[in-house]
């Protein structure tokens, strides 16, 4: 998928309702539930093997860049808006992107020596996404220094979320994907349905890399 360059202000890119998004290339990425057998603890696989989860069927992805930022617009169907986190059983809706930080990083959240960078947006903090680094299932770690801003709308039973970040980052540079114009990056996606108590490894994910070509 081509990530076009459009020289508009970052705040315009950041708005999921901005008309500029109609000019962007898009892709509908199919999702599937993460296998219960791949959950890192016996408790989690035993509990969830008989439950229905990860039912979000797809996520519609668009991306644009301007001179110094990249923005991803992710849209998926979710009739229930879960944004609170007060009751013990409250889990907010969430979405994430995964970028390999090494050539042979696994789709399943990377591995030892082959880390991935995760961009994680969650509905209880709608205006920012977190940048995590992971080197395998169970190892995700928040990188406080990398800032990803976000904007989200829930309307007509769908979430639309834009995550936006500088193309290159200097702090924690080794733990964050560097977006280089003219080159390609790969990514995958995950969606959590908070209303179904989905969190951590309980989610829908895209089991194939999506190649992004960053327009020079």
């Amino acid at each position, binding site marked *: 998928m081509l990530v076009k360059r459009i020289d508009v202000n970052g705040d315009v890119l950041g708005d999921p309702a901005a008309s500029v998004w109609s000019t962007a290339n898009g892709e509908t990425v199919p999702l599937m539930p993460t296998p219960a057998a791949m*959950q*890192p*603890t*016996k408790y989690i696989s035993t*509990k969830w093997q008989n439950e229905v989860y990860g039912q979000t069927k797809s996520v519609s992805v668009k991306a644009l860049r301007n001179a110094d930022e990249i923005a991803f617009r992710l849209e998926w169907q979710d009739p229930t808006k879960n944004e609170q986190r*007060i009751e*013990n059983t409250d889990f907010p809706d969430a979405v994430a992107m995964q970028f390999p930080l090494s050539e042979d990083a696994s789709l399943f959240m990377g591995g030892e020596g082959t880390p991935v960078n995760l961009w994680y947006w969650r509905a209880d903090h709608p205006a920012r996404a977190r940048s995590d680094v992971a080197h395998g*299932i169970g190892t995700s770690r928040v990188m406080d220094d990398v800032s990803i801003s976000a904007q989200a709308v829930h309307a007509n039973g769908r979430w639309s979320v834009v995550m936006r970040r500088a193309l290159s980052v200097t702090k924690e540079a080794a733990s964050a994907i560097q977006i280089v114009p003219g080159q390609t990056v790969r990514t995958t996606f995950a969606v959590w349905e908070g209303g179904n108590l989905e*969190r*951590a490894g309980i989610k829908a994910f895209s089991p194939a890399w999506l190649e992004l070509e960053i327009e020079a």
Partner: protein
Amino acid sequence: MSEKTDIGRELDGALQKPKRQLAMVFDLNKCLGCHTCSISCKRQWTRDEGMDNMWWAVVNTQPGKGTPKNWEDMGGGWDEKGEPRPSKIPTRDEFGDAWKFNKEEVFHGGKGKVTYLKPVNTKGESPDWGPNWDEDEGGGEYPNSHFFYLPRICNHCTHPACLEACPRGAIYKRDQDGIVLINDKQCKGFRFCMEACPYKRIYYNHVQDVTQKCIFCFPRVEKGVAPSCARQCPGRLRFVGYLDDEDGPIHKLVHQWKVALPLHEEYGTQPNVYYVPPMSPPAVDSLGKVDPSKPRIPTAYLESLFGPRVKEVLAVLEAEKEKKAKGEASELMDTLIVYKWPEDIFPDFVQDPAEL
């Protein structure tokens, strides 16, 4: 809180048995139900933001629904085959939440004579449950009504379901004393531990987005000070010590006299808190006639909590009590009585915190 150690579970690693295990024994025959233990814990540890509904140490009236409500029916822990038993996350409402009161209106709003204190829970609703809602109700029919108090904390289990459920390995068991701790820097608030713990002794801090529980007062213990629930207990029934210390009261009660039993051993987590079961007066019939063959608290009920050895333990307690009543020596009764405080009840933790 303390840093993660390399002890305990790696993601698929085996559980390591600690070098030593700290344990507590609660003699239920001495508990007054005063809640001093719960309050001292609250004052010491759970006053920060997001902790207002937390009671790491609770005292439940038995028979009763407990804290959280009906926790014994929630599952968790391990089944007979050693497989995890699925469970659920107990809610704030089931724990009893933390209520807010209209104090401003009643005390300062000039309405003291026309209104009264009305609690509301976090959802702004009038609560229909609290942390001790069924206190002193108990069970049985008059004239055999009965109840006793059951203090509960995290059991710092040897096969801790919480630790083994966490996908991040954020929970660990310390090698030097077997205390089970949640590393709050590692925890991401996923709450699988709250589900997996069959004793439902873990709380969720929604402000910090982490789970929290009893820490066996490890910063006190490291300085030779007993956990605050134990030191403050006016009933002097909370024994503390290492299980392998043959001269200490814990070893005597658990291994030598074998009168201290784990709560719901069938949950499979191998708890390290033990209970001396409560003795009770004989049952009475409707005419007031005493039936010495039947205890007021049904033995079957005690067995449902403390397992098949209850009868045997009660018989030992009864026999030793008799000896003492006759003026004979009873090492067991002397141990349970705690003549010298604090050295008889937590010999390794006698340091007065005020003198540190």
